[in-house]
Structure formats: structure tokens, C-alpha cells
């Protein structure tokens, strides 16, 4: 190499480095204004309002048929049946961060898929996860990534070299506590909550100092003696709350004006026999609104009081500002596992509307306060209930598009379970559930291939679009098999999603018309996301044990 060439090379390095430096720190300001840098995807849901919406517009309904595969990234081994690839990648200034199950964090060149580094957390053999050794992704603040692990650690990792900065063991994996969510960053705090509602845990949502890992606040989703809501655990022995569940499987949302962070909570324990835990069992199956600085509860709404059907409120809260009955209002949209979708006032928690989005038989509607009118309960001989135990939706992200004003729900349509009531005893570290219900679709673990021989009356999968203003369903895209895929909407009026059939596809966001699809050869159990590098828009989706990245043919 000549001196001249070398200096040119150095100059290039300098320019690249300077560019990187200008963008190096992912400040909370940047996260708050994520819509101003649509080339990046800085949080689990793309913004703090939980929209899973990309402002990018290069890929359109007119050209989406020209999408082609750019690169794939294969996890290092064939996925175990329970090690679904559920992570949504982050992309920060051309670098992608994603998590291979269970807790292998990788940094990739987002344009080519080549790896910069990999960090594999050493997972305790004591870890036990009811429903999959999975992780849904990392959070970033400054130059630090945050990964919560299935053995109950929260780990801060240097985004440049993949080395841990601090590592806190927060909960005891031998008792069934685990983390599967992507943490939420609010200001200088990392907020997480545990999975483990099937192990008789006592759930919480807690905030940790991003620099040190020190706990700043904690809200117990199962209130203890003296805490508000404790009186909704009315067993004579006064012990049921200790194993009451209320996990936080999925990342919350944040409203900076109200300074409230919203979290969905999971089922009470034991799942399928409510007799040991009489009462409403707050704050299980609820949305809780917490002061982001103190963790103090501002309000709550319980979707499924005294749940016996495993209807976790394990969904991303979707925050939208739109007119409600003529007045501008801060709203929350929520498609719940229990088969109803809701409109709440997110300032006060007031119930505004609840409507079924699939066949629902466990409740017949709502009273004037928004309390569901429960119609069914598990019995010794079995009770047939719609929707099935896996729910009408689950952890898979919905989407909201401010352009169409529509709310997109990945849905399990007309599925059913038979619930049996059997005696249950709590034992530390063992599942605390009751008898597993029968289901018209398997819960979480279809075989590796997407074999589907079911009858139409067993139910089906769909992406549905609803107009929150009218409650009206605008369209439904039907799939023969059900879907564990999140939904992405874009500013060019596309909707991306997939399903168990092993397709990843694009729909017209206004009509639901299918415009493009790719066969990805394994089930999609993750949410799509979009990003751009050098003006070129990409769409990424994990399916099977592989990450696929698409862009328009050049």
C-alpha cells in the first residue's frame, strides 16, 4: 500500500469514526423521538407507545412484490422445540443487536448479517421456564445493552465489544422465576418484570439504575399485607397471595407527558383452579399504570378478575391519542388473550369499550364499570370455553398505524379448550397450575414442520384490523393455521406478519389484501421490524431458528 493510499484509508476511517461518534450514544432523548430517526429501531416495539410501526416508506404496496432476501443469520444449532426465536432485533446506526435463544446476544452488520461479536450468558441449570427457553430482545441506553435472562439475571453489556459491565441476579431460578422480555428503558432506568406465572411466583415490575444495576423501585403485582389490593386475596389462611403469580412476560410502554409506564400482568397461580385463591386476585391479568420515577401505582384495570383460564394480559400496551366521542383523548388499545379488545383512558384507567374479536364464551359482556360478566368456570368433568387456553392472542405484538388509524391484531379465531378442575398443591420450584386443558390447537409446540391437517371447525389464524373510533372490523386476513407472529405496520400502508405455516407476508394495511409472501420454512414466533442503511429499507423477521432480512431488488 502506498503512503497516499494509506492516508486516504485513514481519512476514511476518520470519517466513518466521526460519523459513528456523532451517533454513538443512544440517549433517552433519541429513544423518546425514535420517529425522527426511522432508519433505526431503538426499542422492542419501535417506539415507547408500543406501536410496532415504521415511518419508512421505500417499500410500498406497489413495489413490495420486488422484495428479495438480502441475508440470513442462522442460530448455531437447530432450535429445540421450546427454544423459539422470539426476539425483535434492535438496529442502531447500521448495527443490529438480537438474541438467539435462550440468551446469546449478537451484534451484526445490519446490511450484510456479518457478526461483530457474540455474548453468551452462562445459564444456570436450575432455570425452568414453563413455555419456552426464549428471549424477546435487548434494550439499549447510551452504549450499553441490557439483556434479562431465563435464569433471572439482568446483565448490562458493552454494545461495542459484547463484554458484560454488570450482572445482577435478581430472582431465584429454582423457584421458577425467569426473564423472557426485552427490558424497557425510561430515562436512566431499566425496567423489567419476571416470567413464571406457572410456578407460583410473586410477580413484580422493578426499575434498576442503568449505570449500576441498583434497584430504584419495585411494584409488587401481587400486593402483600398493608398494600392496596391485598384485600382481593380472601382465602381464610391468608397465604394465597404469596404464590399469586402476576408475571410480566412482555415489555411495557411509556407516556412521557403523564410520566406513566404501563405494564400488562399475567395469570394468578394456580392457573386452572381458582378455589385456593378466592377474590379478584389483583393485580393479575391487569394493566397497571406506574409512576416512572417511583413505581407508585396510578391506576389499574383488571381484564379478567379471578381468572381460571390462563388469560394473561401479556400484551404490549398500545398508546394512541385520538378523538373519542368527539373529544381528543389519551387512549390505550389492548387486544387481550381473553378474546376482547379494549379502549381505555390511559390518564385515568377508565374503561371506555370492550368488544370480542373472536368467539368468546367465558364472559357475556361487561357491566357499566367494565367488569366482565363471567359465564363459565372449570369443572371436574371439564368445561368447554372459547377462546382456548393459548388465548385469542398472546405475547405477539399488535400494531397501530397513525396513517390508517387502524389497530392490527394477530388473532387465534374460534379456538376452544376444555378446562378441568383438580386439586393443586404448591411446591417450591414445581409448576403450580392444575390440569392442563385440552386445546383445539397445540399451545406452543407444533412439530418442526408446519404440518396442518386440522378441520376448519378447530379454528384458524388471522390478522385482523379494527377501527378504534367505531369498534368496527375493517378487514381480516385468514390463515389456515394459527399465528404466533407480531405485526408491523409501515408509513407506506403495509402490514407485515407471518404464522405457523412458515410464511412471512405483506398485506395492504387498508384492505388486508395479500401483496407479497416468502416461504421461510419454519414458524414465525417473533415480531417483524424495519430499518434503513444508506437510504435502503430492510424488513427483518425471525422464523424457525433463522433471522431473515429482506429489501427491494436493486
Amino acid at each position, binding site marked *: 500500500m502506498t503512503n497516499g493510499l494509506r492516508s486516504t484509508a485513514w481519512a476514511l476511517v476518520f470519517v466513518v469514526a466521526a460519523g459513528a461518534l456523532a451517533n454513538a450514544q443512544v440517549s433517552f432523548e433519541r429513544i423518546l423521538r425514535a420517529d425522527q430517526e426511522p432508519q433505526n429501531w431503538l426499542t422492542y416495539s419501535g417506539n415507547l407507545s408500543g406501536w410496532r410501526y415504521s415511518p419508512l416508506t421505500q417499500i410500498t404496496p406497489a413495489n413490495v412484490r420486488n422484495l428479495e432476501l438480502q441475508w440470513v443469520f442462522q442460530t448455531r444449532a437447530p432450535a*429445540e*422445540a*421450546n*427454544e423459539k426465536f422470539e426476539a425483535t432485533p434492535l438496529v442502531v446506526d447500521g448495527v443490529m443487536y438480537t438474541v438467539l435463544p435462550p440468551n446469546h446476544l449478537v451484534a451484526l452488520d445490519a446490511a450484510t448479517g456479518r457478526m461483530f461479536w457474540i455474548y453468551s450468558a452462562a*445459564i444456570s*441449570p*436450575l*432455570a*425452568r*421456564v*414453563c*413455555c*419456552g*427457553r426464549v428471549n424477546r430482545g435487548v434494550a439499549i441506553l447510551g452504549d450499553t445493552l441490557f439483556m434479562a435472562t431465563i435464569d433471572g439475571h439482568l446483565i448490562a453489556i458493552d454494545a461495542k465489544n459484547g463484554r458484560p459491565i454488570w450482572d445482577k441476579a435478581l430472582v431465584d431460578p*429454582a423457584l421458577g422465576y425467569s426473564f423472557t422480555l426485552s427490558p424497557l428503558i425510561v430515562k436512566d432506568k431499566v425496567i423489567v418484570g419476571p416470567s413464571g406465572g*406457572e410456578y407460583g411466583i410473586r410477580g413484580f415490575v422493578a426499575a434498576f439504575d442503568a449505570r449500576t444495576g441498583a434497584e430504584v423501585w419495585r411494584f409488587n403485582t401481587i400486593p402483600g399485607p398493608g398494600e392496596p389490593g391485598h384485600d382481593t386475596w380472601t382465602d381464610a389462611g391468608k397465604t394465597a397471595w404469596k404464590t399469586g403469580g402476576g408475571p410480566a412476560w412482555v415489555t411495557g410502554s411509556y407516556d412521557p407527558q403523564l410520566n406513566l409506564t404501563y405494564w400488562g400482568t399475567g395469570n394468578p397461580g394456580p392457573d386452572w383452579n381458582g378455589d385456593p385463591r378466592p377474590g379478584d386476585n389483583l393485580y393479575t391479568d391487569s394493566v397497571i399504570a406506574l409512576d416512572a420515577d417511583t413505581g407508585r401505582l396510578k391506576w389499574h384495570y383488571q381484564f379478567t378478575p379471578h381468572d381460571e383460564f390462563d388469560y394473561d394480559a401479556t400484551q404490549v400496551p398500545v398508546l394512541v391519542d385520538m378523538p373519542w366521542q368527539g373529544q381528543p383523548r389519551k387512549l390505550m388499545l389492548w387486544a387481550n388473550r381473553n378474546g376482547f379488545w379494549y379502549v381505555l383512558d390511559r390518564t385515568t384507567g377508565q374503561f371506555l369499550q370492550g368488544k370480542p374479536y373472536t368467539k368468546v364464551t367465558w364472559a357475556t359482556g361487561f357491566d357499566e364499570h367494565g367488569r366482565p360478566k363471567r359465564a363459565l368456570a372449570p369443572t371436574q368433568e371439564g368445561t368447554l370455553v372459547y377462546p382456548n387456553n393459548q388465548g385469542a392472542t398472546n405475547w405477539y405484538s399488535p400494531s397501530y398505524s397513525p396513517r390508517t388509524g387502524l389497530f392490527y391484531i394477530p388473532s387465534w379465531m374460534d379456538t376452544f379448550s376444555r378446562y378441568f378442575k*383438580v386439586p*393443586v398443591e404448591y*411446591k*417450591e*420450584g*414445581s*409448576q403450580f*397450575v*392444575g*390440569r*392442563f386443558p*385440552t386445546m383445539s390447537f*397445540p*399451545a*406452543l*409446540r407444533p*412439530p*418442526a*414442520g*408446519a*404440518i*396442518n*391437517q*386440522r*378441520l376448519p371447525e378447530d379454528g384458524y389464524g388471522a390478522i385482523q384490523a379494527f377501527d378504534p373510533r367505531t369498534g368496527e372490523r375493517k378487514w381480516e386476513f*385468514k*390463515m*389456515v*393455521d394459527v399465528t404466533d407472529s407480531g405485526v408491523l405496520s409501515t408509513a407506506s400502508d403495509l402490514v407485515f406478519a407471518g*404464522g405457523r*405455516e*412458515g*410464511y412471512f407476508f405483506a398485506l395492504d394495511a387498508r384492505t388486508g389484501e395479500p401483496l407479497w*409472501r416468502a416461504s421461510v420454512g419454519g414458524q414465525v414466533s417473533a415480531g417483524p421490524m424495519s430499518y434503513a442503511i444508506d437510504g435502503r429499507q430492510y424488513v427483518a423477521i425471525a422464523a424457525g431458528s433463522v433471522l431473515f432480512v429482506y429489501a427491494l431488488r436493486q
Partner: protein
Amino acid sequence: MRRVAVLVVGLAAAAGTLLPLNDRGQAIAQDHGYTPADIENGARLYQSTCAGCHGPAGDEIPGVELARGQFRRGTSDTDLITIIKTGIPGTAMPPHSFSDQEAAQVVGYLRNMTMVRTGIGTAVLRGVGDPARGQTIFEGKGRCTTCHRVYGRGPRLAPDLTEVGLTRPLPELRDALLDPSATMRPGNRPFRLVTTDGRTVTGRLLNQDSFSIQILDSDERLVSVQKRNVREHGFISTSPMPSYRDTLTIQEVDDVIGYLVSLKGFNP
């Protein structure tokens, strides 16, 4: 032949004491050292702890069929107890806080799962007939080999019966012979489609998704069709198999069942 004879005796012996579960468990348990109460408690533990991943029939994890004793790791009861208690590090199998006795009870249930689940002894259980006579009927008067395949011989249109003695409980075999349409398993359902150019294809549905259908057609071809090229499609609710209620005597049906339960695969 000797093996089959032992099996028949075993089933007949079990049949006499199978009602209710506890009594029946007694007969089964003696082979493995589990008491009926062990098996019953194991079943309860299984339903609450294991069925979520393994499924109620123990067959929802690819490569693992608990009811058939097909495990990825470990074969002895001791192996299985260890795996249940400690899990398999690096896999989806977590550790469980069972005592040794509880883990053993779960194994006790796994060892008896098919019989417990299918309720042999709770249905009206007739004696199992003579396998040799059953084979003669199967290949002759019953005309079963017109459609079924056994040990690599025969057509593939109907289910291959090489392992049917392992995979189907006895009452289900009887129901299949007497009322075939009532007991079709998902992978055996007949399917019919008509293409947009007017061609009718029938066969067994292997798989379908929102855009395509995979089928083994009546000429034993593996056919994949795009739904955009299909005018209509759907399951046929009646099985192509005839009922033998009126064409075979009760004794002949018993004999055919005797033959079927003797079919245990290539490497029994």
C-alpha cells in the same frame, strides 16, 4: 408366535382386573414395581407438570413419544428419574422439584401411559382373537390389503399398519373396524379437491396452509397444489373403509384385532 401368545395372555389377564383404574393398575404395576396409587399420582403429576410441553398423550415434542418409551436420552427408570429431577441442561427440559418418589411415580405413569389413557378395561373388552386366523382374514375375506400396507407390502392409500399394535389402543382398533368414519385420525382423513381446470384429485391430506395443499393422491403421488389453482377443496367426512359390522362375525373381528395388535413395527 410365542411372543404374540404371551401378549394375548397378558392382555386377557389385565382385562379381568382392569376396573377401576386402581385394580387395573395392580396388574400392570407388578411388572415395574409401581403400585396403582403410584401410577395414579404419577398421572396427576404428569397432567399438571409435564403435559404443558409433552402434550396429554406425551407426543408433542418432536422425537419424543413418552407413551411408547421413545426418549432422546435415557431408557432405564433410573435414567428417567434423574432427567425428570435435574432436567437436561441446555435443552428445553427444565429441572423439577420432585422427590425421588414423585419422579418415580411419573415414570410409573409413563410406563403405563397408553393403557391408562385409553382405558383398556373400562370399555367392553372382548377377548383378543387368534392372530394367525386374523391375518388370513386380513389378507383374504376382509380384503384389507387392497388398501393397507403392512411390513412394506401393499398400497399406501390407507394408513400403513406396520406399527398399529403399538400406536392404537385396542378399543380404537375395534371402533375402526366397526365404524371407520367415526375414528379417523387427522392424518388419515380423505380429502378431495377440484382444480380450476376441472380435474378432481382425491387422496389423503398431508398438510395444508393458506396458499397450498399437499396430498398423497389416489395414484400414490405426492402432489402439491396452489390454492389459486383450486376451485374447491375439503375433507370427505366418510372413510373409504367399509364397516365390517355386517361382513365379519364377532369372532372374525376379534381375530383381525388379534393380528393387528401383533403388528409392532420392524424392530419390535
